[in-house]
């Protein structure tokens, strides 16, 4: 099981730690060659403008789209949700509003129920978080907060407004790894 974590900027290291603790091999993705042979790909949080520029300067967009075209699983968290949207890599049929909840002083953590992913709610950390503004018909909303979608899925792509990796809870990573196994089978 090889799961790549985009490592151009942001909170990639802590995703790798979670992957390690569930026994998956986490691969730092900085160059196109790192994308070869991955069972899944995580687009982590960070600054979406910085990450977008990093994807461009490292020439990673094409490889990520190929990964997506083969319907291999992708998980975007926070900035990763933005990077995956219609206006960026176009991996999922949504538009997002950046910093939708406000600046850092409005950042927060809360319980979020994710039916189909975890049995009981997860503690979710929202850091200058986005929400989903518009979504296509084939996008499923997994969770809403304050009237806006904060967890969505379309086929192989799952996007979360928040950071499941900032709490000591491996359940979302374990669920994602399970999807990666199935997609390989």
């Amino acid at each position, binding site marked *: 099981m090889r799961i790549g974590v985009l490592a151009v900027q942001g909170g990639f290291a802590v995703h790798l730690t979670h992957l390690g603790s569930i026994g998956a091999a986490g691969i730092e993705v900085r160059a196109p060659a790192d994308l070869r042979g991955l069972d899944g790909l995580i687009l982590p949080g*960070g*600054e979406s403008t910085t990450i977008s520029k990093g994807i461009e300067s490292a020439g990673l967009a094409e490889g990520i789209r190929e990964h997506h075209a083969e319907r291999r699983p992708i998980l975007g968290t926070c900035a990763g949700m933005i990077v995956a949207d219609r206006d960026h890599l176009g991996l999922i049929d949504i538009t997002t509003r950046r910093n939708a909840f406000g600046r850092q002083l409005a950042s927060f953590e809360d319980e979020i129920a994710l039916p189909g992913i975890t049995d009981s709610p997860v503690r979710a950390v929202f850091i200058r978080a986005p929400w989903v503004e518009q979504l296509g018909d084939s996008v499923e909303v997994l969770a809403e907060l304050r009237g806006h979608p904060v967890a969505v899925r379309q086929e192989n792509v799952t996007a979360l407004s928040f950071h499941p990796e900032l709490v000591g809870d491996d359940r979302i990573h374990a669920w994602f790894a399970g999807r990666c196994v199935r997609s390989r089978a």
Partner: protein
Amino acid sequence: MAEEATFRVKTGLAEMLKGGVIMDVVDADQARIAEEAGACAVMALERVPADIRADGGVARMSNPKVIREIQATVSIPVMAKARIGHFAEAQVLQSLNVDYIDESEVLTPADEFNHIDKFEFDAPFVCGATNLGEALRRIGEGAAMIRSKGEAGTGNIVEAVRHMREITSGIRKLTTLTSTELPTAAKNLAAPLDLVRDVAGRGWLPVPVFCAGGIATPADAALMMQLGAEGNFVGSGIFKSDDPDRRARAIVEATTHFSDPERVAEASEQLGEAMPGIEMSALGDDGRLAGRGW
């Protein structure tokens, strides 16, 4: 139940800045250049450190008007500096909704004995440290991010290297001690015992550690990342160079691809002159900023 300003929320933003470059800017135009070049955040200040050194006088928090203009111009996080111990400046910065407050030795200290009680604030703080004990004292006061205290405005990386090595080797030493030995280590570090135990257990600080002070070239940025920095602050090095836009991009590139010398070489080509540097021996003891704070 939703909770704001928890320690996890405060360190969470610093986690998201990792692998990135935070650039000093003095106005909205510079902030725009920084964001376009790929900065993950900007630090709003009145004068860059090289000018503070050259001009002398008391250096204070930025004018709130400039901070607001910068916030209105860029969508990336905006940080700002308060003087060491000047909690009223920090209150003002918090009221301006800045994303991180830097209690900084680059400004003239307001209190020679006490740092700000950072637990009193909802805004997260980053503080400078020259060694592990100092880093843990700042975390003990509520800092959610640590940076080295390299000599700002000199374009000389030597002090930041010293601080990063002091911090990382200090951590490594702690991990070799038994639980019986940790209280004495805490005494020698002049650091809170609970934090010493925490660091000994996890082998790293409980908050992200960035480099600050003296970065002038892409290779400087790559050096600091390889020495354990989780991201870089760059001050005078960008806007005191010949071509700030290109240099900013190059330093961002080198921070991401720090372990790939070919990428760092590529980023370093076609750059104009770096900022002129200053030898530490030319500063004298009074000229050193790292001695501010304890």
